[in-house]
């Protein structure tokens, strides 16, 4: 078997705490790569009062070189096996349509990959660590959004 998981070690490691602007969330254990409970911006809040939660900041946001590395990691971690080449959707959802099942802010995407999600999204935090996941987030957020999404027409114009 030549198939072997490749975890890029060249990428600089970022301790999760350093990438996190905590508001009033419970602190993660010192030295741990586990982020604190994060705030989900899109959720509705009972009583209109949002609970306190951490906002995770992507240390590589907008970095084209990291996005390129993330594209390779997206393949090396078999993300494309479920989300398709280019993240256009297969068994897992389309990640390039600008719409998000579990939130599309950097920290929300991070949490989905780190901890996994119901319906079979595996938790990659254990195998990749924080910086690997930020690399994937950077790639996913770099995908160009399609121009006209909601309407599919078969009528001749």
């Amino acid at each position, binding site marked *: *078997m030549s*198939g*072997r998981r490749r975890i890029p070690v060249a990428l600089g490691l970022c301790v999760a705490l350093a990438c996190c602007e905590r508001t009033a969330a419970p602190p993660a254990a010192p030295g741990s790569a586990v982020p604190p409970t994060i705030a989900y911006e899109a959720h509705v809040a009972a009583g209109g009062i949002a609970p306190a939660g951490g906002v995770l900041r992507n240390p590589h946001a907008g970095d084209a070189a990291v996005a390129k590395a993330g594209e390779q990691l997206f*393949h090396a971690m078999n993300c494309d*096996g*479920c989300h398709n080449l280019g993240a256009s959707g297969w*068994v*897992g959802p389309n990640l390039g349509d600008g719409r998000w099942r579990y939130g599309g802010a950097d920290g929300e995407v991070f949490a989905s990959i780190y901890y996994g999600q119901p319906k*079979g999204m595996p938790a990659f935090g254990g*195998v990749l660590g924080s910086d690997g996941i930020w690399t994937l987030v950077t790639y996913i957020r770099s995908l160009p959004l399609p121009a006209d999404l909601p309407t599919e027409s078969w009528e001749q114009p």
Partner: protein
Amino acid sequence: MLRQPIVLIVLSCATASLPAAEDGQWTMPAKNYAATRYSGLTQINAQNARSLHPLWTFSTGVLAGHEGQPLVVGETMYVVTPWPNVLYAFDLRKEGYPLRWKYRPDVSSNALGVACCDAVNRGAFYADGRIVYNLLDGHTVAVDARSGRELWKSRIADLGSGETVTMAPLVVGERVIVGASGGEFGIYGWLKALDLKTGQTVWTGHNLGPDADMLARPGAFKPPYDGGVDIGAKSWAADSWKTGGAPVWGWISYDPELDLIYYGTGNAAPYDPEVRAGDNKWSASVLARRPGTGELLWAYQFTPHDNWDYDATGAMVLADLTIAGKPVKALVHFDKNGFAYTLDRATGKLLVVAAYAAVNWAKSVDLATGRPVIDPVRQTGVSKGKVMGVCPSLEGGVSPTSPPAYSPRTHLFYTSTNNLCMDYGAMHASHLRATPYVGVDWAYHPGPGGHLGAFIAWDAATGTKVWEDKESYPSWSGALVTAGDVAFYGTLDGWFKAVDARSGAVLSKFKVGSGVVGNPIAYRGPDGREYVAVYAGIGGDWSLIAGDTRSDDPTDVREPADFMKDIARHTSQGGIVWIFGL
């Protein structure tokens, strides 16, 4: 009310032998152990089928692909849905067929992301008062057919290793035979037998690996074209067999006289063949085992060193044919690889082979060696880049999800087919537990003629196509044929059709609300009349490839398939049970 126990007694006798007299029921996935999907009912025939019309429908409440088929046992119809694998029991004695009960198992949603190709289920089996079927998350359940009470639930597969269960079990005597999907996750494929009364595992035979794992005893295991010790491991580079796939997600048949079960294995993993040099036995093969012990008696590999995802999980139909004037106990299989094979089911020796679809990966199959004559131009691998124009596509000339039917009256096989070719670019894949182990960049194109599918009649004694009804879309439903000489199938764009089994002439058609990827059945109702039932509910691979047929998730919007841009114009998701009659 009084009829029920009598019918059940008759059933337990009828299912024990192969050519049972027609009892009007449909108690196992393919009607009988021979997997012919032939009903001896004659009320609906080629003369009156024009007046077929829908009599009853039921929404299953589930949107995934409705593969498989209902069962009819006595006066009850049983329907298993895709995940979450609800089991419905309809009372056919009462107006509107109200439910007697429904059973909602505890099944993990994690399975949705481990199943390669939609959350499908291929059906249940009735045996000894129990409905037995598989849950997507790797369990088999037995449910009391009268009360709906769960009798046992056994974990048979490991989601964390990439195993899910979509196939329909086969019950032989006290054994429930089951297997797992996971050719896209690099599983170590297997077949298991559970005890019908308890659900305990009795034996496990792997489909690849060393002889001991495969339950292959020296001297007793006699593959007709191969020999040697541990070829299930030695025909793989290094230890690549350990993640070699060869899953079981199709159908199992059984010959009571030979006491052999027959089933096909799926693709070799990963999709890049260059990392697994060798024949990769016994992926893409048919295996014959003793149901009582699991012992492997013979195996035949349709696609050695699978380069194209040519699973052999399609049905193995057992038919007694006359070939060149001689009676033969045959096994007939339409492989994804585009060839139809007629084997001697006692030995596995190849008797007749011919292409039923456009094929170019091989020029022919050598009857003397049993091996395909490969066209080297179509061989794939990372070093070869994108290999263009391979026929058939990895959807298969026939999808294994679309089992054929065989009529002993016309001596013909009936099957849906796909007319697709592909470009196949193997890519590096990493084996990481619970993630896909695939590695391919592919594209589909219409095959010769431009139509995308067809329903055909095939003479397996001579290897010739007798007639063909072309379809605009890939054809993915199973087939049914009856003693009324009517064949039935559904289309991906949502037509359910009855055709003349001798000519292929369309006798009736009806738009059933969603594309058909399920398998029609025929049965006699409590009123003595013949009915035909089928699921509508597009899905399976099409929920992925033609993702624009889905509208279930506003956060997941898909482009149309580039080779089939308008299927979503004609159909969308939605599981419906249909019953037709005169």
